[in-house]
C-alpha cells in the first residue's frame, strides 16, 4: 500500500514539475499542443494526488499500523469517523489534504476558464503548477505520510480534543479557504505575466474567491464553536497565532471583495486589487510558516519538523514574485479613472479597505512581535488580548459603521445634504436603540454600547434597502410584494446577497459584544447539595456519575438549574479519561436559551475523590447569535454565488471572440 502512495506522490511531483516547465515554455513560445499537454498534466496531478489520498484513507480504515502516520494518529477502537478525520490529524496528512484541495481547485478553475480566457489560462497553468510543486516536494522529500515502520500492536490514538465532530470538518473548511486563495492569486499572476490586464482574471475567479472566502469564514466559526464547546475555557477566540493566521487572509480577502467592485464599476484600483490578492495568498503561506515552524508559541503547537524553513522560502518567493510582477506591469495597470470626491461609494469602499488592511497588519504585527522583539531587543515579547482587543475596537467599530454607510452613498460624489436625507431613518433608529440600551443598563461597557448602536444603524439601512428596492420594483412592474422582493434579489444577487452577509456580520458583532462585554462569571467548590449563584441563575450540585464510553471513562457532575422561580432542568459537566491516549479532557455543560441567545456555561474544573467539585460558571448573553451569524453568512454567500443566466449571457457575448480555445488550431 505504502508503495502505491509513495509512487502516486512522486507522480504528482513529476506531473506538476512538467506542468510548470512545459506550461511556462508553451506560454513563452506560444506552443498550442505543449500548453494543452501542460494543462492535462495539471488535471492528472489531481488524479494521482487523489490516489495517494485514497491509499492513506485505506490505511486508516484497515488499521494498517505499518504506516507510521496511521500508527501515530489512530487506534483500533477509534470510531470510524475519527479514523477518517485522523487523515488530517497530523502534519503529513494535513499537507496531503492541502495538496489534494489545491490540485482540485486548480483543475476546476482551469477547466471552467479554458474557453472564456484561453490565452490567460496558458499563463495561469504554470503558476498553479509551481505552487503544486512546492507542496508536493514537502510531501515527497521532507515530511511523507507514507513512511513505514514495524507495525505495533495498536496505534497511539488520536488526540482526544480532535475526537469531536467539529474537528472532522473544521480543518477541511479552513483548507478549502486557504488553498482557494491560490486560485485568484494564480489568475492575477497569470494576467500580469501575460500582460492581459483586462477584467477576465477577475471574472474568471470571482466565484472561486467567494467560495474560498466563505469556506475560510465558516472554518473559523467552526473552530470557534469547537473551542467554545470542547476546549472549555469559556471563550471562543483567543487571538492565538494559529487563529490569527486564518483571520488575516480572511480580512484581506474581504477587502479585496470590496475593492474589486470599484474596479468592475469604475475601472479604478487595479494595482491595489492585484496587491490584495497577492497579500492574501502570501499571508496564508506566512500563517502556515508561523504555526508550523514553532517560532512563536501557540496553544495549538504542532510537531516542530524541518518544514518551517521551507515555508519561509515559499513565502519569500511568493512575495518577491508578486512584487516584481506588479512592478513590471505598472504601466499596463494604469487607469484614467480617478476618485472624484471623498464622499462617494468609491471613497467609502476605500476607507473600508484601509481599515480592513490596517486591522490585518496590526494583527500581523502582534503575531510576529515575539520574533521582531527577539531580533531587536534579544527578548521575545508576547502581546496579549488587550493589544488585539484595542485594535479590534479602533478599526472594527468604524468598519461596522461603514457597512451601513457604504452601500447607500452614490457613486462618484454625494452631497452631505443628500446623505443626511438618506440616513435620517437609520440614524434615528440607531439613536433610539442607543438610548433604550442606556436605560436598560448597557452603559456599563462603552464599546459594547457603541457596537450595538452601530449594529442597529446597519440593520436599519439593510431593512430600508430591501424595502426601498421592493417598493421601487413594485412601482415599476406592479408585482405583488413577495414576487417583487424575489425578483429584486434574483436580479441583483451580488448586491442583496452582500446585504445578507452584512447582516450576518452585524449578528456576529452583536454576539461578540454581548458575550464579551456583558458576561458574568462565578466559581466555587461545591459538595453535593450546595448551590452557586451567577447572574439570575442558581445552580445546585446534585450528583456525580461515572460511565464507560467507547474509548473513554466519562465522569459527569449533574447540576439543577433554576432562574427566578423557574426550574430549567439540569446541566452536566465533567471530564473524559481516554484510555488509549492516557489523557483527560474537560467536557463542559452548556445550557442555551434559544429565545434570548444566552448560554449558561459550566466547567467542572476539578473533581475530588470525596465527590466535591470545583465549578466555574459563565453567563454569556447573546453568544448564540455568533453561530446564527454563520448560517446567515452561508445564506448570503449562496445568494451571491448562485449562477445568474443573464449575466452569464452578457459575459459570453463579451468574451466570445477573446476566448477561442487554445487547444483548437488557430486557423
Amino acid at each position: 500500500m505504502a508503495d502505491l502512495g509513495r509512487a502516486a506522490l512522486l507522480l504528482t511531483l513529476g506531473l506538476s514539475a512538467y506542468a510548470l516547465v512545459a506550461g511556462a515554455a508553451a506560454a513563452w513560445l506560444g506552443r498550442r499542443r505543449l500548453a494543452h499537454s501542460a494543462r492535462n498534466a495539471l488535471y492528472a496531478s489531481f488524479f494521482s494526488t487523489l490516489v495517494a489520498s485514497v491509499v492513506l484513507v485505506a490505511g486508516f480504515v484497515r488499521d494498517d499500523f505499518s504506516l507510521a502516520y496511521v500508527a501515530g494518529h489512530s487506534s483500533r477502537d477509534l470510531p470510524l469517523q475519527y479514523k477518517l478525520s485522523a487523515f488530517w490529524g497530523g502534519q503529513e496528512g494535513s499537507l496531503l489534504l492541502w495538496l489534494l484541495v489545491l490540485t482540485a481547485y486548480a483543475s476546476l478553475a482551469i477547466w471552467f476558464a479554458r474557453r472564456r480566457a484561453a490565452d490567460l489560462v496558458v499563463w495561469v497553468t504554470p503558476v498553479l503548477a509551481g505552487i503544486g510543486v512546492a507542496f508536493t516536494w514537502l510531501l515527497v522529500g521532507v515530511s511523507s505520510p507514507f513512511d513505514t515502520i514495524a507495525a505495533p500492536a495498536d496505534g497511539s490514538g488520536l488526540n482526544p480534543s480532535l475526537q469531536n465532530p467539529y474537528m472532522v470538518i473544521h480543518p477541511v473548511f479552513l483548507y478549502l479557504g486557504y488553498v482557494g486563495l491560490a486560485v485568484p492569486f494564480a489568475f492575477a499572476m497569470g494576467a500580469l505575466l501575460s500582460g492581459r490586464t483586462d477584467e477576465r482574471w477577475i471574472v474568471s475567479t470571482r466565484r472561486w474567491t467567494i467560495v474560498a472566502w466563505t469556506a475560510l469564514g465558516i472554518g473559523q466559526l467552526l473552530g470557534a464553536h469547537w473551542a467554545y464547546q470542547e476546549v472549555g475555557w469559556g471563550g471562543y477566540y483567543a487571538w492565538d497565532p494559529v487563529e490569527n493566521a486564518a483571520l488575516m487572509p480572511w480580512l484581506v480577502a474581504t477587502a479585496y471583495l470590496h475593492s474589486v467592485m470599484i474596479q468592475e464599476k469604475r475601472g479604478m484600483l487595479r494595482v491595489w486589487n492585484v496587491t490584495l490578492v497577492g497579500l492574501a495568498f502570501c499571508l496564508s503561506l506566512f500563517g502556515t510558516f508561523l504555526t508550523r515552524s514553532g517560532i512563536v508559541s501557540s496553544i495549538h503547537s504542532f510537531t516542530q519538523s524541518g518544514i518551517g524553513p521551507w515555508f519561509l522560502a515559499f513565502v519569500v518567493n511568493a512575495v518577491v514574485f508578486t512584487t516584481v510582477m506588479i512592478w513590471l506591469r505598472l504601466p499596463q495597470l494604469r487607469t484614467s479613472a480617478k476618485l472624484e470626491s471623498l464622499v462617494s461609494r468609491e471613497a467609502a469602499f476605500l476607507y473600508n479597505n484601509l481599515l480592513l488592511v490596517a486591522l490585518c497588519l496590526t494583527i500581523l504585527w502582534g503575531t510576529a512581535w515575539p520574533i521582531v522583539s527577539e531580533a531587536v531587543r534579544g527578548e521575545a515579547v508576547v502581546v496579549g488580548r488587550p493589544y488585539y482587543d484595542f485594535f479590534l475596537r479602533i478599526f472594527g467599530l468604524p468598519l461596522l459603521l461603514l457597512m451601513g454607510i457604504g452601500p447607500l452613498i452614490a457613486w462618484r460624489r454625494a452631497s452631505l445634504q443628500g446623505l443626511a436625507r438618506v440616513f435620517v431613518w437609520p440614524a434615528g433608529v440607531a439613536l433610539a436603540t442607543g438610548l433604550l440600551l442606556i436605560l436598560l443598563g448597557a452603559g456599563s461597557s462603552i464599546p459594547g454600547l457603541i457596537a450595538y448602536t452601530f449594529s442597529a444603524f446597519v440593520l436599519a439601512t439593510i431593512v430600508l434597502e430591501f424595502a426601498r428596492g421592493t417598493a421601487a420594483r413594485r412601482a415599476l412592474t406592479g408585482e405583488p410584494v413577495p414576487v417583487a422582493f424575489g425578483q429584486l434579489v434574483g436580479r441583483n444577487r451580488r448586491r442583496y446577497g452582500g446585504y445578507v452577509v452584512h447582516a450576518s456580520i452585524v449578528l456576529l458583532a452583536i454576539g461578540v459584544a454581548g458575550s464579551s462585554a456583558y458576561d458574568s462569571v462565578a466559581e466555587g467548590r461545591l459538595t453535593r447539595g450546595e448551590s452557586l449563584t451567577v447572574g439570575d441563575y442558581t445552580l445546585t450540585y446534585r450528583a456525580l456519575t461515572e460511565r464507560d464510553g467507547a474509548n473513554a471513562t466519562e465522569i459527569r457532575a449533574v447540576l439543577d438549574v433554576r432562574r427566578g422561580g423557574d426550574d430549567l432542568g439540569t446541566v452536566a459537566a465533567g471530564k473524559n479519561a481516554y484510555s488509549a491516549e492516557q489523557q483527560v479532557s474537560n467536557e463542559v455543560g452548556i445550557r442555551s436559551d434559544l429565545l434570548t441567545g444566552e448560554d449558561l456555561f459550566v466547567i467542572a474544573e476539578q473533581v475530588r475523590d470525596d465527590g466535591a467539585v470545583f465549578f466555574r460558571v459563565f453567563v454569556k448573553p447573546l453568544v448564540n447569535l455568533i453561530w446564527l451569524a454563520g448560517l446567515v453568512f452561508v445564506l448570503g454567500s449562496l445568494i451571491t454565488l448562485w449562477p445568474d443566466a443573464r449575466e452569464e449571457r452578457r459575459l459570453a457575448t463579451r468574451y466570445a471572440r477573446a476566448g477561442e480555445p487554445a487547444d483548437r488550431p488557430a486557423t
Partner: protein
Amino acid sequence: MSVWLALGAALAVALVVVVALPFLREPAPPSDSLHELTAAERERLEAQEARDRALAALKELEADHRAGRVSDEDYRSVIGVVRRDAADALRRLDRVEGARTGGAKSR
C-alpha cells in the same frame, strides 16, 4: 508489495498518456501556435469592458435614484458625467470596431 508497485507503474503509464495526448492526437498539425489576441482585439475587449461598465453605472444610477437612495440634487450633479462617460465608451467601441472592419476590408 509488488502488486502495489505494479499498480503505481500502471498509474504512471496512464497519466503519461494523458499528458502526451495532445501530441498523440495531432502528430503533425498544420499550426502549433497559440491563438493570441491581436492588439486590435485586445483594444476591442477593453472597449467592450468600458462600455459595459459605463452602461451599468448609468443603469444603477437611474435605479438608485428611483429607489430614493440617491437624492434629486445628487442625481442631477452626477447624471451628466455618467451619460457623457457612457457616450464616450460607446463612441470608443464604435471607433475600435470600425477600425477592425475597415482593416479587414483593406486587406
